């Protein structure tokens, strides 16, 4: 549905987005994952026209958007990273305002509003001021306001950051439902476990795409094996030993009492790390991200 072609953006000396090319497939969930400064938000802002791109092209349904961003904004709903609705207006007033701005007909507005309030579990809070809502509720409200215009493309910039785990699960359930309705969803997240839920995952770092594919595709193409190791003795001493070993340095990281070690080729890291237990596991997206990030 949307294609970024060699998009770049610099803020002074900082290259926020560096020759990024990626595709947002229709009726699917595309997730941009990466740490702060990866360029995810800038990419979204360029898509809706809030930030001017330096170079490259954005194609919507095969046609270059050029400088006419209304072509994108007329079919999309954009939810910024920061809660940007009116805190002093109630849930219902916020929804009414944005529906009126989008010129949703009165009858349809009433029906949609009711359906969204029920779907997001906000019905009991419809009269509550947005500023008094919990983090999760705020994000649900922000999502509801963009859904009032029934957009084909839904852009969500870190919608689950700072949201409690239960609300995150509920939020994702709504996103899955939207996908089943045939909507195209593109969202960003710093949580790699969350990113695994995407149909297409784009791993980003410092304005560049590290890798992109489905989770299955990423796993298939991943060149390393993952070993979960319970070291003998002190785990920090074991990590110091790994750091000093040129064969292992930069390939292991701590996760609780375990060391997660990425190993290329057929060699087994167990021979170099004194351990009580070692299990080969399927690499997670987090393992892959760390691997590619260190490679970069």
């Amino acid at each position, binding site marked *: 549905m949307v294609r970024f072609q060699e998009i770049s953006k610099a803020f002074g000396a900082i290259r926020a987005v560096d020759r990024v090319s990626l595709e947002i497939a229709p009726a699917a969930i595309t997730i941009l994952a990466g740490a702060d400064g990866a360029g995810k938000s800038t990419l979204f802002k360029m898509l809706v026209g809030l930030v001017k791109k330096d170079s490259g092209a954005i194609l919507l349904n095969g046609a270059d958007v050029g400088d006419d961003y209304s072509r994108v904004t007329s079919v999309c709903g954009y939810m910024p990273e920061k809660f*940007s609705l009116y805190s*002093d207006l109630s849930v219902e007033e916020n929804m009414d305002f944005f529906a009126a701005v989008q*010129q949703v007909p009165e009858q349809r507005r009433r029906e949609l509003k009711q359906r969204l309030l029920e779907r997001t579990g906000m019905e009991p809070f419809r009269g509550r001021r947005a500023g008094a809502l919990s983090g999760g509720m705020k994000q649900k409200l922000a999502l509801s306001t963009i859904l009032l215009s029934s957009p084909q493309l839904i852009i969500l910039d870190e919608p689950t950051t700072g949201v409690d785990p239960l609300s995150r699960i509920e939020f994702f359930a709504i996103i899955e439902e939207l996908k089943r309705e045939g909507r195209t969803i593109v969202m960003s997240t710093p949580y790699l476990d969350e990113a695994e839920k995407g149909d297409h995952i784009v791993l980003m770092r410092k304005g560049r795409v590290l890798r992109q594919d489905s989770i299955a595709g990423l796993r298939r193409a991943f060149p390393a094996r993952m070993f979960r190791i319970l070291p003998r003795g002190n785990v920090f001493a074991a990590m110091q030993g790994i750091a000093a070993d040129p064969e292992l340095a930069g390939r292991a990281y701590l996760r609780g009492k375990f060391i997660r070690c990425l190993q290329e080729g057929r060699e087994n890291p167990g021979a170099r790390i004194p351990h009580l237990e070692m299990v080969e596991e399927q690499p997670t997206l987090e393992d892959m991200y760390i691997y590619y990030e260190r490679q970069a």
Partner: protein
Amino acid sequence: MGRIKAIIRKEFLHILRDPRSLTLVFIIPLIQIFILGYSVSYDLDRVEVALIDLSQGGTSRQLARAFAASPVFQVRSRSADGGALSPAEAEDMLRQGLVREVIVIPAGFDRLAAAGRRAEVGLIIDGSDVNVANLVYQYSERVILDFNAARMGSAGLLKIGTQMHFNPEARSRFFFIPGLVAVILLMISAMLTSLSITRERETGSLSLLFISPLKSVEIIVGKTIPYIFVALLDGAVILLFARFWFGIPFRGALPVLLAFGLLYIVAGLALGILISTVAPTQTTAMLAALLITMLPSFLLSGFIFPLDSLSPVLRAISYVVPATYFLRIIRGVILKGAELRHFLFDGAMLAAYSLLLLAVAIRKFAGQRKAAQ
């Protein structure tokens, strides 16, 4: 129209639910007019003066009584020990600022007066504050002229018959307070819209408006209309306060003032929008609105200094200060009962100013929106 209505409704909700802004809008102007209404005045009341009567005759005592009877002066003619004030003591008092003037009735004053010859009275005035010195001189001169006329009876050849029209008691408060209304109204209007837009920029909601189907003109018009009502209400509150607290007369027709006031308020609101396009934060916007509206309105509109006394350059600048036009209108309507036809030029200038500012504000806002892309 539906989208503009949605913005108007939203803005009204913001106003009603933000007690801080409501305080800013209604209480601060009242405090300003209260303080400035008392402090900015050319009237003198109970000015301390020293009087040395070296003649000690009937006529000199009559003159001393004439000064004492004036509501303007508080005459001190005795020293601390109860004796007559000496010239040295009076000079000391003048230096210390205890008195503003020393009136000296010289020895021989009575003798000359009785002989029908010219007798002189000395006025030594503290000139460190020229405005006060001039007023003290004028008031003293009036006392002496009245005293002279009373003594001469009908012997005087000419008599000036003076009538102060519109302000019979020549109270400077009548002149200043309508001016204050004009200054405060412009300041509040500019502040209202500048804060409204910068607040949206700070919270991030302006980005959502930017990418919405709303046209820039719809955003600006929708944001301006509610504040027209607020500023009009504010103006009414200030005028009522001026009328009933300071006793300022209202001789003109309210619809005339309302019509011109509307144009003036739109100019102020448009100025606020312009400020908001460059001010990144609410604090900057507030300071900019204060600076841009208050200083020129106070100094270059004829509020304090008559336009005739300004240098040609400053006078030229005064023509782009909207308060210059509204000041003439409000003083004319309130004090003189002037009608619409008396201020057609000023009204046309205000209308042109409002439309121009609004057009520039919309253009600048749209440019900013475009620049984001």
